[in-house]
């Protein structure tokens, strides 16, 4: 792991007290200065670009899927079917790729690797993450993993759904192995990021930054990192076993050779359920920041929120079986897993109440990030509450593997994890690029996304309770009307995201310059210039209560806030 003498290279280019306008973006120039950078901010930015690119890719496949489902029978998939293949097969590849890309390339690295990398060390008051080289390494692992996916795309796609259940995944002939290798590599990228964050938070907290002075985003990221380290290796070995099963018929997962398909589901969900918390916990952390900062009021029940993050992380390991209530898992295990599952719902509920209580009596500014924060609370409440139907043994029998599940996890993964991430992007964008985006466009795009999302996915709850199974290329006509509504909603969302892409790009070139502290926040990243200097802090910053807004005053001249404590 990162033998320290290797880091010596960087100590040469350490910036002596950096004077504006020297910041991390213009600190050094040229392709290599980015490709080989050890600066967590640049790495975070590169991650962000990659993740958003993959989000666009996954989004395109989502739109294809929705369009195909506009009417029963073949709609558009036929046009994409090569002579050898049938429309169904084309459609199956679409949803497989959509799922795999969105989960492994977008949501899991999204908040921790992209935003976390940029924000976490500055928030903490550190000069960098603990192992900068490892950090760069995990970025390139991510790139390689992504390349494997691209390869499968151009090599005829991959079938089997992102869960790759055996024995189907072990028996069919599409590019399962390249895809699995890609996921395996992405897994290690995620592990290394997690290790980096845990060590950074343990060892690089400046004096005065005690555990309970840490911003809540750090608590979220810390819990996430623990899961990444402890759960992801099991995914790795599961994929290796599956590859062995495909190539050598080792007989662990394939009944044909003496294996047990349900065992694969245990292996897979032991990682993939905690992975759900890898996705949601950092988003929750972001929202805790957004609500507090834009209400200019300290988070209500800081300790409850902090502890509930850890609680969710730990309980998250004990509930994987609730994905298997109808898989012929034994009734006893069904009961145990259902019981523990409900216990996870409590800390999530606590967070929602605390966020509301934080807004109460605050000084709220309906900025764009705040709008995303509010959207998160609304969507996460729906996502969380509908989880109760699926955690309940009896009702889950009806809902399992229907569109109800699809709607539920889209509310949690997209409506919560991704909306939270975009909230973070809008919150830290001025800090990242030093410029403001167009607020009006941003509000329009927010509205389109928010409304479009609910139109798309709330309809799918109805579809699901009506019994529409997931992963269907064709469906009974009685479901048609819901599918049409859902598809319309997905187009609204697409429009919203196009607008977002436009104003974010436009802001980089034409955006209004952002002051150091445009939102009136008091966490450390807002105490250094926008964009931050190469080394974050010339001298170790004075750590104060990062949620005390009394010393933060608005200065109309600069259109931002100034802090009396460190001006």
């Amino acid at each position: 792991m990162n033998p320290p003498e290797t880091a010596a290279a960087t100590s040469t280019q350490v910036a002596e007290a950096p004077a504006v306008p020297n910041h991390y973006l213009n600190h050094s120039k040229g392709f290599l200065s980015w490709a080989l950078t050890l600066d967590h901010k640049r790495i975070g930015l590169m991650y962000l670009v990659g993740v958003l690119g993959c989000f666009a890719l996954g989004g395109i496949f989502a739109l294809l899927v929705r369009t195909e489902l506009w009417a029963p029978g073949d709609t558009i998939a036929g046009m994409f079917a090569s002579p050898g293949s049938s429309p169904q097969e084309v459609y199956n590849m679409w949803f497989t790729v959509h799922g795999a890309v969105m989960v492994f390339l977008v949501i899991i690295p999204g908040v921790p690797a992209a935003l976390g990398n940029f924000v976490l060390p500055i928030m903490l008051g550190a000069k960098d993450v603990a192992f900068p080289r490892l950090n760069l390494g995990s970025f390139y692992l991510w790139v390689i993993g992504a390349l494997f996916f691209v390869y499968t795309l151009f090599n005829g796609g991959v079938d089997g759904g992102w869960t790759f259940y055996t024995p189907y995944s072990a028996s069919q002939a599409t590019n399962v192995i390249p895809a699995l290798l890609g996921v395996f590599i992405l897994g290690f990228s995620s592990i290394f990021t997690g290790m980096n964050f845990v060590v950074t938070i343990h060892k690089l907290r400046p004096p005065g930054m005690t555990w309970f002075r840490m911003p809540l985003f750090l608590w979220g990221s810390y819990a996430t990192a623990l899961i990444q380290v402890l759960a992801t290796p099991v995914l790795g070995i599961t994929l290796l076993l599956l590859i062995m099963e495909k190539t050598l018929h080792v007989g662990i997962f394939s009944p044909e050779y003496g294996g047990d398909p349900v065992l694969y589901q245990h292996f897979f969900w032991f990682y993939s359920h905690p992975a759900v918390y890898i996705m949601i916990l950092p988003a929750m952390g972001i929202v805790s920041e957004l609500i507090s900062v834009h209400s200019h009021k300290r988070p209500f029940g800081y300790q409850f929120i902090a502890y509930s993050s850890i609680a969710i992380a730990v309980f998250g390991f004990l509930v994987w079986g609730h994905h298997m209530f109808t898989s012929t898992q034994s009734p006893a295990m069904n009961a145990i897993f259902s019981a523990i599952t409900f216990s996870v719902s409590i800390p999530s509920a606590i967070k929602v109440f605390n966020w509301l209580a934080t807004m109460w009596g605050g000084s709220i500014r309906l900025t764009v990030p705040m709008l995303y924060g509010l959207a998160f609370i609304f969507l996460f409440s729906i996502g969380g509450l509908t989880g109760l139907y699926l955690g309940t043994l009896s009702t889950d029998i009806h809902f399992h593997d229907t569109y109800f599940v699809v709607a539920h996890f889209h509310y949690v993964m997209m409506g919560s994890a991704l909306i939270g991430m975009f909230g973070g992007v809008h919150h830290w964008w001025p800090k990242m690029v030093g410029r403001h985006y167009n607020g009006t466009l941003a509000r329009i795009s927010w509205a389109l996304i928010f409304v479009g999302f609910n139109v798309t996915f709330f309809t799918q709850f109805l579809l699901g309770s009506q019994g529409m199974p997931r992963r269907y290329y064709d469906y009974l006509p009685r479901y048609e009307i819901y599918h049409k509504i859902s598809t319309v909603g997905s187009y609204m969302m697409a429009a919203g995201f196009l607008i977002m892409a436009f104003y974010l790009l436009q802001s980089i070139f034409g955006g209004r310059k952002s002051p150091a502290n445009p939102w009136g926040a008091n966490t450390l990243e807002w105490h250094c210039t926008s964009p931050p200097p190469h080394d974050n802090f010339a001298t170790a910053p004075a750590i104060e209560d990062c949620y005390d807004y009394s010393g933060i005053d608005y200065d109309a001249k600069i259109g931002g806030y100034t802090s009396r404590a460190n001006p």
Partner: protein
Amino acid sequence: MGDHSHGTDEHGHEHLGHPLSVRFLVGILMALLFLTVVTVGVSYIEMGRTVALLVALLVAVVKASLVALFFMHLRWDKPFNSVILVASMAFLILFIAFAKLDTGEYMHEITPMTEAPGYVEQGLKGN
């Protein structure tokens, strides 16, 4: 995570490690070799599956802890490093236990693929 640093002397070139005496380390090896002989020897004694498994695991755990505590210096490390190791073990045991609990419950009713109707006639599917 109750780990607190030992402080640093003003020149930052202090002893970071905790050198152990050669005799001590060799002693640990002797213990390990002895336990290896024990576990091999025991394997020749006829006893039930479960007992044999438990004995073997017990010896292995003792050996492992010797290595971890002394060769890997956990004994003198920050406690959190031990916490990590124990946590990983704990989650592993949990994983195995739950999976076992479940498969154990239904394994008895597993019929091999060859039982499935029409499968025997079909013979073992080639690839």
